């Protein structure tokens, strides 16, 4: 759970850095060239299959863990105090399900179109081959207020999931030390705010600039 989680945490940063090119005012040139690179570089292709595997492992492990823990608790209390806990840690499974549904919709929307080769090809000066215009479906999706809201809300849920997940991964791996616990908490909090915020800015920006 923790190792696959940490891998996905690192992936989010890489994914965000690539996506920030959507904010460039070049009609999608940088983003499309980047998209071509990501789908044609053999190393990245291999890592991406690892990524799909890790997402599945994380989701399956999480579900099994949740089922096991529910059965280990058996019955519930008439009065719950929830002292010393926060809702981020108590609803990890619920947030995870929403994020998983988001990933499926997100992949159908962009990844599948890229893989099926239904996107238009465009050529740019200085590039000796044509590249798929992945920018177009992004532009189309984020001109729809419904999709923009869906993406922004999903990122809010991702922030909740990361808020607990980041520091929890360290604790599970036994990386707990009074000297560094504060640092892990602060970095985790910043990461859980900044990464989803970075992702959420993109659809909002594209909607406002349509």
């Amino acid at each position: 759970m923790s190792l696959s989680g940490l891998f996905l945490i690192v992936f989010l940063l890489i994914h965000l850095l690539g996506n920030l090119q959507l904010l460039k005012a070049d009609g999608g040139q940088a983003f499309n060239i980047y998209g071509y690179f990501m789908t044609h570089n053999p190393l990245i292709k291999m890592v991406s299959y690892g990524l799909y595997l890790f997402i599945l492992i994380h989701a399956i492990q999480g579900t099994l863990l949740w089922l096991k823990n529910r059965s280990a608790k058996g019955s519930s209390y008439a009065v719950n105090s929830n002292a010393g806990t926060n809702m981020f840690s108590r609803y990890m499974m619920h947030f995870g399900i929403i994020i998983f549904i988001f990933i499926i919709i997100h992949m159908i929307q962009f990844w599948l179109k890229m893989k099926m080769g239904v996107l238009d090809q465009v050529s740019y000066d200085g590039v000796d081959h044509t590249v798929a215009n992945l920018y177009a479906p992004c532009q189309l999706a984020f001109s729809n207020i419904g999709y923009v809201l869906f993406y922004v809300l999903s990122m809010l849920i991702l922030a909740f999931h990361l808020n607990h997940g980041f520091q929890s991964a360290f604790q599970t791996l036994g990386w707990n030390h009074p000297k560094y616990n504060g640092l892990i908490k602060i970095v985790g909090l910043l990461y859980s705010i900044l990464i989803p915020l970075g992702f959420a800015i993109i659809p909002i920006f594209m909607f406002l600039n349509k």
Partner: protein
Amino acid sequence: MSALHLNLKVWRQKNQQSKGEFQTYQVEANEHMSFLEMMDVLNQDLIEKKKEPVAFDHDCREGICGACSMVINGKPHGPLSGTTTCQLHMRHFKDGETIVVEPFRAKAFPIVRDLVVDRSSFDRIIQAGGFISVNTGQAIDGNAIPIDKDTASKSFDAAACIGCGACVAACPNGSAMLFTSAKISHLGLLPQGKMEHTRRVNNMVSQMDEEGFGFCSNIGACEAECPKGISLENIARMNRGYIKASLLD
């Protein structure tokens, strides 16, 4: 000495198989009584009325044996932090208050009767490795082995665990990792227990899983409710030991 008139909603259950339910009782207590003494007053009243008294665990009534349990208003050992039920006094409740009393709930702690749960799963975890193997003979001088103060203190803090099971009761996952890790830390931090640390972690964690306890998802309810203030740091130490044990054995 002011009297307290309380409404008690107490979980009554004949045995493990039967279906339990809440029963409401009125009790007159005073503020100097401990929670258990208040329960004694209720039971005396029930006995006088030829009714079945409420079964609950208790022993030393000094906060050190770990026998008392109960979830009071949603909190194991009641509203006062760092306190067992026997050391919880009625002055922390208001006159006319309704108090909900439930047994510790976890699959590995089956209900025996009313508020009594079977915590022998903890005993079996201890039996699996919560000891150090020493040859019999004359006891050696305790100060012959140098131990630095910080390590001794950490070990002592972990040893403060009285094995009451409040951690399991508080955990939404019914996990016993705070208890098991406290026992593992208290022995494994000291030179006498260090040698068997890896094997101990492996055996105790295996037994813990076999008993049907849940897995830790780092929620932190156990640490908040522990009457002895056992830290989550112990769970991380156990996890380190477990990873090492998995790689080496």
